[in-house]
């Protein structure tokens, strides 16, 4: 089971950087754990903390002006490694939605498998979101999964986003893929027999 997601209204944290790769989201040296917990602590580790472990004041996660359950990032978010630890770190930190104009494929799958919704918007809409947050850090975004829309609440600017209907069902109901696959075992066995 994953956490259900229906809709969310929240302020957002802006990370106006393109090509945020999974090595930035969670550096490899923090992948030694054998459980899924605690990765939020090291989310964006090397952008967030200096060598001695002190928070870097100019990094957005360390700036109390910005807060909320939505991360807004530049295009091509989550490129690079397949490490699901990146999705765990985003989730564990408390983000439920990542908004970007482009997502790397594996990250998108990993996020969905952990109840984090990747919302892919147009470049223009993304710029509007960044501008709105810059103008007012308390500005709220509303993400409506059943309707597949994202709205900048103050201005009412809205855009719809795509999501695979199956994945949408999973998120709305908190189902995960393994439950589904397990229900298919007989079919899988039949497939195996047919092949030999």
């Amino acid at each position: 089971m994953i956490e259900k997601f229906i809709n969310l209204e929240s302020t957002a944290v802006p990370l106006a950087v393109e090509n945020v790769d999974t090595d930035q989201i969670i550096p490899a040296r923090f992948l030694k754990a054998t459980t899924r917990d605690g990765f939020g602590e090291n989310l964006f580790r090397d952008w967030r903390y200096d060598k001695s472990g002190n928070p870097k004041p100019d990094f957005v996660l360390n700036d109390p002006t910005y807060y909320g359950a939505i991360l807004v990032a530049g295009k091509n978010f989550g490129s690079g490694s397949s490490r699901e630890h990146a999705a765990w770190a985003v989730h564990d930190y408390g983000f439920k939605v990542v908004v970007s104009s482009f997502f790397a494929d594996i990250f998108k799958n990993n996020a969905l498998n952990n109840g984090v919704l990747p919302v892919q918007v147009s470049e223009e809409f993304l710029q509007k979101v960044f501008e709105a947050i810059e103008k007012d850090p308390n500005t709220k975004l509303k993400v409506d999964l059943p309707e597949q829309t994202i709205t900048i609440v103050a201005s009412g600017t809205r855009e719809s986003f795509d999501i695979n209907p199956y994945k949408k069902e999973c998120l709305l109901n908190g189902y995960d893929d393994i439950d589904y696959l397990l229900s298919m075992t007989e079919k899988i066995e039949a497939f195996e027999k047919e092949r030999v």
Partner: protein
Amino acid sequence: MTGKTLFDKIWDAHVVSEIKGGPSVLYIDKHLIHEVTSPQAFAGLEERDLKVFRPQNTVATPDHNVPTIDQHLPIKDELSRFQVSKLAENCKKHGITLYGLNHPYQGIVHVIGPQLGLTQPGMTIVCGDSHTSTHGAFGNVAFGIGTSEVEMVLATQCILQPKPKRMRINVEGELGEGVTAKDVVLYIISKISASGGTGYFIEYAGSAIRSLSMEGRMTVCNMSIESGARGGMIAPDEKTFDYIQGREFAPKGAEFDAAVARWKELYSDDDAVFDKEYTYEASDIEPMITYGTNPGMGTKIVSSVPSLDDIPKSEQSSYSKSLKYMQFEPGEALSGKPVDFVFVGSCTNGRIEDLRAFADFVKGKQKADNITAWIVPGSKQVEKQAKEEGLEEILNAAGFELRQPGCSACLAMNDDKIPEGALAVSTSNRNFEGRQGPGARTMLASPITAAAVAITGRIIDPRELMLSQKELA
């Protein structure tokens, strides 16, 4: 009816069922696992009280998090040791074949698969590692997956996957001297960008691709993910069959012949349609190097860092951030820059041909004093072969040492970290910020470029040295 692409032929043959408007249930022939992305998947199985569905289709090896010296001793780092022992424990419990540390078959998962003949044409292959695309060099559908997906495959030998679109990249003509498979793929990514392949599965074709050895083809397919593509593949041919024949897990005798007959059907039909297609001329490709913090930021070694005017406005701030990290100026020449580290290894260029090319280049020369070099074989078998072929002697005579197999400084999970601020020329696949250690600056290049840099201590087009060598002769 239009013909089918190679990708479609293999994918379609593995679809168990399709969810309407959703992903396919795809059957997986071969599942490779390693210590870093599998423990949480096994834990998930246990929570659900499940067994591994087809343990015989899974093979395990520790690679990401192992030391590359003193492998006979217990791993010093406690967390790493625990992770590696957890893999062994999980494999034992579920009856999965494990090539553990010190086993003659241990090595980087994408190096050992082909080497052992586990990787074969027509298969579906997955691993909790994005460079699973390497195996596509043999004409199969191979791609990296996340840990939840590892759990799915362990539990059901299947995965739910939306079908990617198809792209074909043709490279036609003859590659020039000093131009390697690594240069070809760095060139391609510099053209289509680090996200140009997202949503696609790539088939590489054309006479220049066909001219590559199997190991060269693996280098190209390996870096497919660096363009964002799920995977890359090359239609199998005689070279492929010859490479596979006689390997440990390859079919033998009449079975092999029958397999080859099937494998010969694996090509894109003449009238197959691709969603996107690019064609490049081999003669335009020269030795390449990256100057930025994603693999798309590559250029000819002889040219300079692009100036800001060459970059689209919307990308300029990311571009500047990247150059600032690299401590490079827009427009500055790359050639002649002093380098601190050379890393030869990884699933991109840590195979025997890579070590041969490096050793051949440094033979009779000396490592530059300002260079620290880490030469890391991709597997135990590569290490053994390098010793047997006398490569280690050549390396030692030139001032280099051979380490023990693993991912090493490719991702710097173990102690092999490039120090902060140091500039490294690496044969691996990622130049992301901090990839090779916090603050480390990475430039990606081929093994022979790495060799030329290791000898001169600076960025140099390897052809400069090859020419002078010829003149001497």
